[in-house]
């Protein structure tokens, strides 16, 4: 297993653009900490994000994992190109001839996905911990380690999304087209039909159906955290909107994403086995 990880590491780390993107990604993750310095002063209205309760334990786990998950697109580019480049450089063929089995090839990619997701999760855990200790109003142990399931959801969300990217990379074989396909999938298969269902039928129906789709189920894992803030809640109440929202990470949501992950990895292996190179 370490051998497979090491093989992939050599391929990734010697590639300047992959290295640049990975460093950028973790740099951006760290910059979540910069949210702490956001301050608005518009006349009488003073807003300091750090004081608004965003960094309170345990809410911070929810807020940070949600924001950090948006950055996963950076790593998606790496995942797609690390697969597609193997086709365009024909190095996949050479790897197989050199004695890597097709299963090992997929496994080395999947292990890399797991490693990247895991490092990202650890990273966000540490950043949140530091931010929380600096700005949280209450630092009781109970509050700190409450709601850690958001980290599990974050890990599963990244793994699922990257597995989807891996599959698309193998299916399309060209990184630019694969990223285009990913975007088209989001628009044509998930976003627009979702909007259609919402506007013509009901939000509930749209939500239910799309909680079973790849991107929809991944999105569901970590609900948007904004309406959970007291500040936002009170504004919403003033305009007469009731924002009771389901913020909890549900087990069935995690299982749906895990099933998709398994399907993508299995299909990738199947495609690779069936194809002549």
């Amino acid at each position, binding site marked *: 297993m370490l051998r497979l990880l090491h093989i992939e590491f*050599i*391929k990734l780390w010697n*590639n300047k653009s992959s290295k640049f993107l990975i460093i950028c990604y973790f740099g951006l993750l760290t910059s979540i900490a910069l949210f702490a310095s956001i301050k608005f002063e518009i006349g009488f209205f003073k807003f300091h994000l750090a004081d608004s309760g965003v960094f309170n334990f345990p809410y911070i786990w929810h807020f940070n994992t949600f924001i950090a998950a948006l950055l996963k697109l950076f790593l998606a580019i790496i995942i797609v190109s690390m697969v597609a480049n193997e086709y365009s*450089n024909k190095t996949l063929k050479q790897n197989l*001839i*050199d004695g890597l089995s097709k299963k090992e090839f997929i496994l080395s990619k999947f292990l890399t996905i797991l490693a990247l997701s895991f490092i990202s999760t650890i990273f966000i855990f540490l950043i949140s911990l530091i931010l929380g200790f600096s700005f949280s109003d209450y630092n009781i142990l109970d509050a700190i380690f409450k709601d850690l399931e958001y980290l599990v959801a974050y890990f599963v969300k990244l793994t699922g999304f990257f597995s989807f990217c891996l599959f698309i990379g193998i299916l399309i074989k060209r990184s630019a087209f694969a990223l285009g396909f990913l975007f088209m999938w989001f628009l044509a298969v998930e976003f627009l039909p979702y909007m259609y269902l919402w506007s013509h039928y009901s939000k509930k129906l749209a939500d239910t159906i799309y909680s079973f789709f790849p991107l929809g189920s991944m999105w569901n894992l970590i609900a948007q955290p904004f309406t959970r803030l007291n500040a936002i809640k009170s504004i919403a109440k003033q305009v007469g909107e009731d924002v009771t929202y389901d913020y909890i990470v549900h087990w069935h949501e995690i299982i749906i994403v895990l099933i998709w992950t398994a399907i993508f990895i299995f299909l990738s292996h199947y495609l690779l086995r069936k194809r*002549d190179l």
Partner: protein
Amino acid sequence: MENILTLTNLTKEFGAITAVKNLSFTIKKGNVYGILGPNGSGKSTTLGIVLNVVNKTSGQFTWFDGNTSTHDALKKVGAIIERPNFYPYMTASQNLKLVCKIKEVNSSKIEEKLEIVGLLDRKDSKFRTFSLGMKQRLAIASALLNDPEILILDEPTNGLDPQGIHQIREIIKKIAAQGTTILLASHLLDEVEKVCSHVVIIRKGMKLYSGRVDEMNASYGFFELKSNQNSILKEWIAKHKDFKNFKEDQKGKITAFLAHELDAESLNRQLFKEGIVLTHIVKRKESLEEQFLQLTNNLK
């Protein structure tokens, strides 16, 4: 003798086209094999199948008497197919290090193998800066990293300049001299003739011949003759029992094929006795090219 690779009734169909048809042959340890065939005859497909990159339609192949899985067997094989494929953004030695990881061998031999192919001074240059000849030599170095039981080369000199071709051939000869089994696929016959002891000839995916190069055509060779009395010479040859047949080209050169053993000296002596004086006499064996053309044409 130990079998390295055995093919039994291997078949590959691409849609309606049959690229390889019921192909069977055995590669034994210690010999140098050539796979000969015109372009598109199924050589590369056959190698692709045994190298785990092309899926067979039917039939079987086994490496090392079938005691290991294909991908484990490939760790004991060195192979170069068509074009050298490496990571363009990595240096020569980084690429070789990766191959070592895949083949699960120690990376201590990298410099030694780069030395053999004459690339040691370029080991820290990126692969994309290499010329085609250098890329091909790097591929050979990579194939040698595990001191393979068998070296498979598919058109190793394709697209190279004469100097590059010469370098690659020298390397192959050096490796063959060390007793490594080699399987060389090529459509260049002199290439095969120069290094191979055994040959497998395929055409349109079917095997025409497999065996030793020198047993391919049980022939006694032929004479190339010229004389100022060509018509008498032709009459004499037609009557002589040692000759099967003959032909004459526009320049008056007569090629006479032998049916029995006959050396140049006694032929010359006999002809002189008959009063026929030769201006040109050469005794030759059919080259592999001529034998190959005979074999492949017979099937048309």
